[in-house]
């Protein structure tokens, strides 16, 4: 077989793979989205019973859904407010510890991620009942934070591993106090990660069901509300909601990418060849 034809085969194989990959990712989304515009009483695309916007109308009038969405946002904000600082402090603590102690402490800190969410939820409920605190959005925040803070910690820790320890020493040598090192060197270095951690924390909270199930009290979050609807009968209004979320996500991603490119452009001029020489201080990528 000659070289050319084997390359053609390889290329068509890759093409086929890509098509299959994206079909796997997006066909369910398209199928579910189409259901939002179907006149059928159930979330389905076949049989197609005609185009309609009535499910968006139904969605708009579902006041329970909107209040549960409000609760989800509230819980998400609370989780971000707690998890990011806790994760940051945990990572900084690990950074200070001796290597052997660090491994142990790290194990303890990531264990909530490995634990089934159900257990975290039940434990939180049982623990706070001892103080006469019942379920509600505040308890949902606490329960979710137990494991989401670990995710944040891991993100900060990954970033700290790229911190050049000589920056800290250089700052001390130039007369900085430990507090000044933190404010002027460490925190600016960790700031981009804090934003990333906040986004991840929010998304984790928003989609959480297992843990929240036991602690929401009467403040139903969106996932709890939707799960409840499965039992009494789902309508394509749920699909309409999905369409809105998909559109929002795509819009956010496009906006983010567009801004990123706009920012990257002025800095993209060529760096002098010597800048890459040898052991110069590593420059973190954004």
């Amino acid at each position, binding site marked *: 077989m000659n070289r050319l034809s084997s390359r053609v085969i390889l290329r068509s194989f890759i093409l086929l793979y890509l098509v299959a990959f994206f079909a796997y990712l997006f066909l369910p989304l398209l199928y579910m989205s189409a259901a939002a515009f179907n006149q059928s009483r159930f979330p389905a695309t076949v049989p197609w019973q005609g185009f309609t916007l009535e499910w968006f109308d139904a969605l708009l009038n579902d006041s329970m859904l909107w209040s549960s969405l409000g609760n989800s946002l509230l819980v998400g904000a609370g989780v971000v407010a707690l998890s990011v600082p806790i994760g940051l402090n945990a990572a900084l603590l690990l950074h200070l510890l001796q290597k052997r102690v660090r491994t142990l402490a790290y194990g303890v800190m990531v264990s909530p991620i490995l634990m089934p969410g159900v257990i975290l939820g039940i434990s939180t409920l049982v623990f706070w009942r001892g103080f006469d605190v019942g379920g509600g959005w505040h308890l949902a925040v606490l329960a979710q934070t137990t494991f989401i803070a670990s995710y944040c910690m891991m993100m900060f820790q990954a970033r700290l591993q790229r911190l*050049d320890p*000589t*920056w800290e*020493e*250089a*700052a*001390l*040598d*130039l*007369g*900085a*106090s430990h507090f*000044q090192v933190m404010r*002027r*060197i460490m925190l*600016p*270095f960790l700031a981009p990660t804090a934003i990333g951690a906040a986004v991840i924390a929010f998304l984790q909270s928003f989609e959480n069901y297992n843990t929240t199930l036991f602690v929401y009290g009467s403040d139903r979050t969106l996932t709890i509300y939707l799960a409840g609807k499965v039992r009494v009968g789902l309508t394509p209004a749920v699909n309409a909601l999905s369409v809105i979320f998909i559109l929002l996500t795509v819009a956010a991603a496009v906006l983010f990418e567009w801004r990123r490119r706009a920012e990257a452009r002025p*800095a993209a001029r060529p*760096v*002098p*060849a*010597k*800048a890459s*020489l*040898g*052991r*110069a*201080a*590593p*420059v*973190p990528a954004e």
Partner: protein
Amino acid sequence: MSIGESVHLENVTMRFGDFTAVDDVSLEIEAGEFFSFLGPSGCGKTTILRMISGFNEPSAGRVLIGGRDMRGSGPNRRPTALIFQNLALFPLMPVWENVAFGLEMRGMARSARRRRAEELLDLVALGNAGDKRVADLSGGQRQRVAIARALAVEPKVMLLDEPLSALDLKLRQHMRAELRAIQKRTGVTFIYITHDQGEALTMSDRIAVMSRGRLEQVARPDAVYNEPATPFAASFVGEANIFQGRVVGLSAEEVEIETDLGRMRARNGGDLRQGDRAMLFVRPERSSIALGGDGGRIEAELVEMEFEGSFINLRLRAPNRQPIMVQMANDGGLGEMARMASVPVSFAARAAIALPEGELAHQ
């Protein structure tokens, strides 16, 4: 600008677990001196610097700066500024903020800081780079930013840890002169670390040659080269032909040594006595192709000639197969030598130095 202060090391030892990185080092570095530590990788140079700057406390002994005992003072309370092996510039700050960092930590107002940073950048010939990002600078420019940043805090003692090792040869030579000039202009004590002997010889007022955590010799560059105190110093700094043997004769200043290649004579560099095992060192440029020479004479076989323009390096082999090097001025008489089967190598006793047998540097 600030004037330098002296640095005294008194029996300083540094242990990491049961490994001794610096072993009982005593040394007086004078105020305003350009002092270099020279030694192979891992001999404890950085460790000494970190003890002077306060990042490590010595396991035993004292560090005094300007006569004051520094025990218990952290790096932010010592009148020293360290230039790190990797420079450690802050990548998230523009150049001028890097330079002004120490002033910011001291609470100087922003506009005053900016002005001072510009002055210092002028001093290191980077007048218009204040607003650039560190990542956009060349290696030599970063080097100078690191120097300006250290000078900003008006240190009494500047500590430099192989600051030129990441630069290419040309830039390195340029920066040597520049560093030396800055030191002269400011009067700050410079303590410079390098494993590059050329750097140490050309820049320093004095050099400490180190091996395995110990001082081998502390002396002026010419003395280190011409009067090495130990076999390590003699073999680490510059090239040398080395002959081993036993002392068989002693006179006022000279010793006679019985070697595999016959008897040789040299200055007595280390209290050698009758019967001692000794090593004789003679530099290639002080050996010659001639019959005379009261130090020693070897009939050697010519292996290779390296023509370098103004001088010529000859690589030869002694009857016992030991390699010998001779460097001679180019006097135009090359062709004749190439035809000779064996060449007489000789040297004057004054040109050679004999030391008690000891460890050599691996090169």
